């Protein structure tokens, strides 16, 4: 694997038209690899939070963080790979199943603390939440029965403990005062 590894970066960004385009354009232009990207509203109105999982060595990730910072609509960036962080992904998996395999699939789903959210004559939809490795393992296992379709959200992440302060500051007037 050399020094290439996955890094988790979170960013607080203005919720405006074109911001995602600006960010993805920067990644494409500089040749950085996004392995997953998740976006959603944050706790503050008008601001979104993004979680990127980026492939690359430490230097690449440092440049990703710096170039994200440079974008005017990006307010905060943090590389939380080294931190004690919670990271989760949700996946929906459509699996082939029949009377013979249904109970075995249900057992596996149970072990992964996943859920069956839809059943049809010959398929099941499984919903699973966990880190990327857990989702990968479940998909691999279910593949022995035949996976028709996988839909994943990409990782969202939040560092434990101290991050609460950081999140609060996003909401406080302090961050707006910083606008020179």
């Amino acid at each position, binding site marked *: 694997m050399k020094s290439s590894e996955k890094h988790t970066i979170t960013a607080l*960004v*203005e919720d405006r*038209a*074109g911001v995602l*385009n*600006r960010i993805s*354009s*920067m990644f494409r*232009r500089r040749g950085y690899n996004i392995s997953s990207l998740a976006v959603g509203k944050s706790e503050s109105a008008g601001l979104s939070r993004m979680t990127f999982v980026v492939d690359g060595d430490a*230097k690449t990730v*440092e*440049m990703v963080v*710096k*170039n994200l*910072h*440079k*974008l*005017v*609509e*990006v*307010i905060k960036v943090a590389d939380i790979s080294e931190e004690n962080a919670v990271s989760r992904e949700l996946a929906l998996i459509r699996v082939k199943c029949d009377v013979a395999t249904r109970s075995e699939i249900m057992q596996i789903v149970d072990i992964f603390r996943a859920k069956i959210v839809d059943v049809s004559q010959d398929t099941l939809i499984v919903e699973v939440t966990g880190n990327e490795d857990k989702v990968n393992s479940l998909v691999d296992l279910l593949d022995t029965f035949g996976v028709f379709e996988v839909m994943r959200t990409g990782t969202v992440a939040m560092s434990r403990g101290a991050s609460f302060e950081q999140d609060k500051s996003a909401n406080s007037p302090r*961050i*707006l005062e*910083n*606008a*020179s």
Partner: protein
Amino acid sequence: MIKKGSQIVCESLLREGCNVVFGIPGGAILPLYQALPEYPGLRHILTRHEQGASLAADGYARVTGKPGVAFATSGPGATNLVTGIATAQMDSVPLVIVTGQVNSWTIGSDAFQETDITGITLPVTKHNFLVMDASDIASSIKEAFHIANTGRPGPVLVDIPRDVFVQEVEYEEPGELNLPGYSPNFSGHSGQIRKAANLINESEKPVIIAGHGVIISKAYDELKELAEKAQIPVITTLLGISCFPEDHVLWTGWPGMHGMAYSSFTIEEADLVIALGMRFDDRITGNPSKFALNSKKIHIDVDPSEIGKNIAVDVPIVGDVKEVLSRMNTHVVAATHPSWLKRIDVLKKDHPSLNIPETSKLLARQVVKDISDETKGGATIVTGVGQHQMWAAQHYRFKKPCTFLTSGGSGTMGYEVPAAMGAQVADPDSTVWSIAGDGGFQMTLCELATIAENKLPVKFAILNNGFLGMVRQWQEIFFDSSYVSTAYTGNPDFVRLAEAYGIKGIRVTDKTQVKTAIAEAMDHDGPVVVDFIVEQEENVYPMIPSGMTVYDMIEEPVPEKVTT
């Protein structure tokens, strides 16, 4: 007070100190143009091509240090600006571009002359805006100027739909800036500044590489103080040229692909590189993994994303060069480096890269040297890109700061005509010489009409070798002289062409006529085009092939013995 969007644009530009706009009207931006007569404080210069408008704004901005402003209409008007915008982005030049857009309700419908210009310019602007409501115009333009000209400067584009120009709204002065994600750091970290000063104090063979950042932050005095206090030789980058007087004993040229050999060797032998407002471009480093391996490096730049991008550095300092130097200088102790300076003298003697061979032929280099002598190093020199650009940088001896305008990062041919025009508008009393190639000149020569119309006394020296000279040189050296598509056999008669625009034209075919022609051009009140028919196959030396090291340098072959 109720105002139209178009009036708010003009009011906002005036408030930001803008008084010159380069541009061309068209359908979508027409309402803005129709408001201009109400604002005589905004001088509009009608260019002949939108690329001319963005490049002229670039030249204007480099000379004044204020954002250059350009207007264009939607669609092709806006896309024609793009080369100028990209040029400004690469060289950190502040521009504020206002483009007209199709009516807001037709955006996305492929309406006539619609193009997604904010999308197109996204990777080549520092930031851009699409303003969908006239009440947002004032704040957007205020933010545009602030972003364009703070931190590392760059172009900002403001796209405004036609209906928003005519929309009437209650006009209020813009309030405080609301840019929570934008706060460039100017000051520099005190601990790092101290560390850098310590490295300088310990160094026996220090060298400064001064880049465009020194000019942008006007850190001329601080640079001089540092250099003189600790007797440190000063090398500039191509865009740093003129930030340090070239008749100063510590001036040590400029390095890299076509820079002076001794400058490149000085960097290789130094034990400390002090990089100021520069970005270790590949034209300087060659192979970055083999660049200046004997030295520690201090890197001062206002853009954190430049630190560690190309070259690993020992002491990075994020901050404005002027601010950081003024603080760092107090920690630097006076020193002399006699043996190091002596060593550089030896390098200079061993690698005499700036000799002009004695010949009866008309060499392009000789023309630059003569312009340098005739203007006493005090003119503003604007170049295009290629051989003539390198000769201008090598053989003009700049004595005044901020007098060399060239497209460094982007390498935009044709820069020499509109940018010279912008430079002359910026400083009407200055002597502006555009040193042009016959290739680049033909890319933007339509602006001769603008120059004639506005009576701008720009002097053009076309170093006419009938070739895309630099490309031909690469073909000679790397492709066995196979000159594919580089000969310009259909060049116009540039003298008659100039005359067709009502501009004085002079042709020089012989070495002996050069000085008289330059003097004649300078004596003439208005613009002049001097067509110097120079040697066709003269090469630029030295040359470090792309991606190689200083030790792979090709120096000029021993000059041929020719009697005059």
